[in-house]
């Protein structure tokens, strides 16, 4: 039985802030940040946007493409490191808003930036096991970096939702293979009650991101007996512009396989939404028969890798909802650091 994606949707806040705008506040050298991160600007959520609202909009777009009744969705998983509540599931609100309650299994996932792909992984597994007819996995974040920290230049907001199913006539892309690679690697963390995360600087690179992503991709290629040249597109987690290109090169992928799903230069790092949003951008343009590799990365550290094959129905489904590149490139408004600080609640207000 073929199992895969029957609907997908993205959502990105309208506001953007440029690297220069952040750098001038902290006396930093914008060109070196832009060069070092290969990132020019990032998305900024409004005061009324959070992981739940972004997830609902992405989920509604996924439903438009799937063309199913939301009540047939048997499980909903929202992966994020910025759930609005410490105790109260984001997924329950998402399910209520799209009309998937009450006969639905629901949980929120956390695993730094790979929480979204965890939701996809589990939803896919439950459909494959025959426990649910359709399952939804969402990756969404409105992440924060400490003021002046390198993370502040990249921490962004966005969401991607995927509905898994096995109806042959509904499949947009089959999921042909999966593999997860995971070790205890303390490269990035946020302790309970802390507002901003901390990270291990350069330790986030070689022993963390590169070892984990290459570990997952080498394993899934071996399991599936495929080579990098067998793929039209490859989407890697993109904490900055350089990492996905470099890890792709290490694994034998070419730049043209990576660029379609590499949104980070003008989007920023959407954490749990990062590689899932890259996959939505690929599905927006892929042709039937194209093979796609997606590999997430979450600090802590782990990667979920997926191999997909695009199906004929993608041609008629992709225009039923806004495409990711449109959300990213059109309809945007730039903010200055003062408004950004207000929107991100970095200003201490009177009690």
């Amino acid at each position, binding site marked *: 039985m073929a199992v895969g994606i029957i609907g997908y949707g993205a959502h990105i806040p*309208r506001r953007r802030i440029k690297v220069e705008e952040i750098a001038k506040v902290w006396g930093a050298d914008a060109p070196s940040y832009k060069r070092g991160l290969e990132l020019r600007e990032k998305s900024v959520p*409004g*005061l*009324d*946007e*959070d992981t*739940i*609202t972004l997830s*609902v*909009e992405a989920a*509604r777009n996924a439903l438009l493409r799937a063309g199913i009744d939301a009540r047939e969705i048997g499980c909903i998983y929202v992966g994020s490191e910025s759930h*609005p*509540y410490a105790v109260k599931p984001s997924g329950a*609100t998402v399910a*209520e*808003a*799209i*009309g998937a309650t009450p006969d639905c299994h629901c949980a929120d996932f956390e695993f730094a930036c790979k929480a979204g792909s965890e939701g996809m992984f589990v939803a896919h597994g439950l459909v494959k096991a025959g426990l649910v007819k359709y399952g939804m996995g969402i990756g969404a974040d409105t992440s924060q970096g400490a003021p002046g920290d390198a993370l502040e230049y990249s921490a962004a907001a966005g969401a991607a939702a995927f509905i898994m199913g096995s109806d042959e006539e509904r499949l947009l892309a089959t999921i042909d293979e999966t593999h997860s690679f995971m070790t205890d690697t303390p490269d990035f963390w946020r302790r309970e009650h802390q507002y901003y995360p901390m990270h291990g600087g350069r330790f986030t690179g070689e022993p963390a991101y590169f070892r984990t992503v290459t570990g997952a991709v080498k394993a899934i290629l071996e399991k599936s007996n495929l080579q990098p040249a067998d793929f039209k597109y490859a989407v890697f987690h993109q904490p900055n512009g350089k990492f996905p290109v470099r890890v792709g090169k290490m694994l034998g992928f070419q730049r043209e396989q990576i660029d379609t799903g590499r949104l980070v230069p003008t989007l920023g790092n959407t954490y749990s939404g990062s590689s899932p949003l890259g996959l939505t951008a690929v599905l927006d343009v892929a042709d039937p028969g194209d093979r796609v590799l997606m590999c997430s990365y979450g600090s802590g550290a782990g990667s979920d890798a997926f191999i997909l094959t695009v199906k004929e129905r993608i041609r008629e489904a992709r225009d039923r909802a806004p495409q990711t590149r449109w959300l990213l490139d*059109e*309809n945007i*408004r730039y903010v200055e650091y003062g408004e950004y600080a207000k929107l991100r609640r970095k200003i201490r*207000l009177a009690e």
Partner: protein
Amino acid sequence: MPPARSWRSYPQTYRLEAGRCTSCGAVYFPPRLICSQCKGREFETFSMKRTGKVLTHTVIRTPSAAFAGDAPFAVAIVEMDDGVRLTTQVVDADFEEIRIGLPVKLEFRRVYSEGDAGVINYGYKAVPVRS
């Protein structure tokens, strides 16, 4: 607002559920028990389309305490494509961009929070339709 009160309105604030009179077809949002057109008592529930247009609008600069952090913000009466009219904030738009007849769609947003520790109330706000 106590959590129970906002919870009771989820069908409308989350899913735009309206009532359509099965006798004369009049649509009510929120739903009613008796049709004001034909006095019918049977209604079918349906989720409205999330699109409409601005009927009239204003800018709130001195809001109630619950919305103090949002000011100034735009509020409009929106005529939905399904015929009903509702009052809502208009966001992601410059004030000068908002005009009578502006096509809008309703997105899912935070409406207000009970402080930093209370429940977060979600619902709909209008954003301009851009293509």
